[in-house]
């Protein structure tokens, strides 16, 4: 754990109590067992998160936020990740907010950021269209019309998209699929004519939706930045989204590890605690090693992004890649080390593993991130 300032400590402690008291895994189960998967979170719970100030952590003070920095939001996401708290905080207050902060003009920022900080709206970022994350592959066609565009196409598996009031959409205004040029970010509001969201019932019952754009029109004032040149800023937005998600995954993996370690210290077989078997001890020690390495990466990446360091993109890519590997390892071992009980729906192991696989794929799976890291390294 990095050395925290007093304010950061307070923020983390508040998030910890909130997560354990207000959003334990039983809350996620309640959501799942009802019709909750259609929105993917409890609006009341999100309202309380907003009250805590978390929707405005990275938003500049001028737009109603606290400008506390990404590191602060990372601490909150990590604690919420521990209990698998379901909320649109990441999609709204990190992914979409970063797009507005980094790519928006004054009018767009002053229109939308205060509403995000105050919880008046939720928002999300819609990039992917196929089974694997790869922004350059975006095909969603935007044809120029007046000072804006008309959109035709689809988006796939977008976090919290069915309920989002505002969607930052990556579209192709020029070039061919696979080109990094010709991409543009536009804002589409909920209920826009021609926009059809279909909620998805995913393994992790949080809110995901497919989106269909059938002649959705966007005006010039809803275009973020220069048309056709969104790729570079999108990479910065995705760096932030990835690190935030990595923080959440670090929290989930840490909790999955703690629960497993506890079981190793309580379950008896052959007249011994199973944690005395060396085969399990060594795997536990390796999981601990993976967690510590991942923590170093996540903390370094959050800090680098806050400071605008030159290697921020490398570190962000690294943090998500390590979080992917570690969440994958620990969530699988959690099932195995619990034996039969780990296979039951009543046990939380399954919840941690399902959440892990979903977060591993979002904003870049391990293969994509390795490729990106290699590119950034010039090989």
């Amino acid at each position, binding site marked *: 754990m990095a050395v925290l300032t007093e304010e950061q400590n307070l923020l983390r402690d508040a998030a910890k109590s909130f997560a354990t008291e207000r959003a334990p895994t039983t809350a996620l189960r309640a959501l799942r067992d009802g019709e909750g998967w259609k929105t993917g979170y409890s609006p009341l719970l999100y309202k309380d998160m907003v009250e805590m100030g978390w929707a405005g952590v990275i938003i500049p003070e001028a737009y109603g936020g606290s400008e506390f920095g990404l590191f602060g939001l990372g601490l909150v996401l990590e604690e919420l990740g521990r209990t698998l708290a379901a909320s649109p905080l990441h999609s709204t207050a990190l992914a979409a907010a970063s797009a507005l902060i980094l790519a928006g003009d004054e009018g767009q920022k002053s229109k939308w950021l205060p509403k995000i900080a105050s919880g008046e709206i939720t928002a999300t970022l819609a990039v992917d269209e196929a089974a694997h994350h790869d922004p350059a592959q975006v095909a969603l066609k935007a044809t120029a019309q007046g000072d804006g565009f008309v959109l035709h196409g689809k988006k796939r598996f977008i976090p919290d998209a069915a309920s989002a009031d505002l969607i930052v959409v990556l579209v192709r205004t020029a070039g061919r699929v696979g080109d990094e040029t010709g991409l543009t970010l536009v804002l589409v509001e909920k209920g826009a004519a021609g926009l059809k969201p279909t909620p998805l019932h995913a393994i992790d019952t949080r809110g995901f939706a497919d989106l269909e754009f059938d002649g959705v029109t966007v005006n010039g004032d809803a275009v973020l930045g220069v048309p056709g040149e969104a790729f570079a800023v999108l990479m910065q937005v995705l760096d932030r989204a990835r690190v935030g998600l990595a923080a959440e995954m670090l929290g989930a993996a840490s909790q999955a590890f703690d629960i497993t370690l506890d079981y190793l210290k309580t379950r008896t077989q052959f007249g011994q*605690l199973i944690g005395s078997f060396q085969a399990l001890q*060594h795997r536990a020690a390796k999981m601990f090693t993976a967690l510590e390495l991942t923590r170093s990466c996540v903390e*370094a990446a959050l800090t680098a992004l806050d400071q605008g360091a030159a290697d921020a993109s490398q570190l962000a890519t690294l943090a998500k890649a390590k979080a992917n590997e570690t969440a994958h390892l620990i969530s699988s071992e959690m099932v195995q080390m619990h034996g039969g009980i780990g296979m039951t729906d009543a046990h939380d192991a399954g919840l941690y593993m399902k959440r892990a696989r979903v977060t591993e794929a979002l904003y870049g799976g391990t293969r994509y991130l390795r490729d990106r890291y*290699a590119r950034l390294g*010039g090989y």
Partner: protein
Amino acid sequence: MADFGGDIDTFRTETRAWLEANCPASMRTPMTADETPWGGRRFQWKNPDAKLWLERMAERGWTAPTWPQAYGGGGLSAQQARVLEQELNRIKARPALFSFGVWMLGPVLLEYATEEQKREHLPKIVRGEIRWCQGYSEPGAGSDLAALQTRCEDQGDHYVINGQKVWTSYADQADWIFCLVRTDTTRKHEGISFILFDMTTAGVEARPIKLISGESPFCETFFTNVKVPKSQLVGKLNGGWEIAKRLLQFERQNISAGGFGGAAGLEVEEAALAHVGAMEGKIADPDLRARIAAHKMDAKAFALTVRRVEAEAKAGKGLGPAASIVKYAAATLNQDKQELMLEAMGLDGLGWAGDGFDPRAIRETRAWLRSKGNSIEGGTSEINLNVVAKRVLGLLDHQ
């Protein structure tokens, strides 16, 4: 030496200027394994600049920057030592001295030795005058180190040592040995003492052992009626186990901080681009490229962890749990690197000697073989994992 007072910026400026003026140009180039500056009575300096660099650094005590000046050290605070390290890295300076004395023995002498012993040994370590070796392992005592049998008997005014050590790194080139001996055969851990003696004493014999890498960096070491003055016992009689363990902590910390070096600073991705080839600027083999990227990320994660451990220690939190995984992670990482290097070099990496192979490739191949020892030396990876499981995670011993 100059008193820098409390101002760290002044210290940095003055250090930078001193290094610029005193670090010879040839000491700012990458160092190969055979250029390692070990020092000691028998050391042959191939490059006079290396000797000069050691002398200049030793004069300021900067080969042991945080040791007290009274024993020849630099007397620097942890913060100043960090600045010195940063400034050395900035100009890519080679280490002035490689020394088991600095890394392992000195720190325990500072904690356990008498004033007389400190004044006798520490300054010589700082100046690189005496090269030390480590007499711990024996044929029957490796991971279970406390099973050691080398006998040390009290003969009135001196001790007499009989027995055998093994895997003693550089015993044939070292001047002195710090050695674990049995002074009580009725108790295991409480029958061990920590003693120092000169390797030229009659009855000491070191026989080099050849490794799979073709080198002979370590020896079987035999002791036959070796007479050692009583004043050379460190700490209490039968109190050596505590010192032995403390020294192992320093050893592992040192391995951790530096990681394990490769052969000559060749990067895996460079090797892959050179031997596999490039397509559109990328390593042509996508599978190897992905695994290299994964490895490079592990390497970065490791470096960030070492830095975090230091930052936490400095903030007064002591050595946190992350510190315990560092030796294990360092060993795994270097072995992965050397395996990838070998794979990337393909047939070009399978040379042992001769003109048919690039000497740089041969060095990497030797380094690959040597790296297999990383998970054995200084405590095996299995033992490291046992320690993490028990001490850090609180898991119990099997009954």
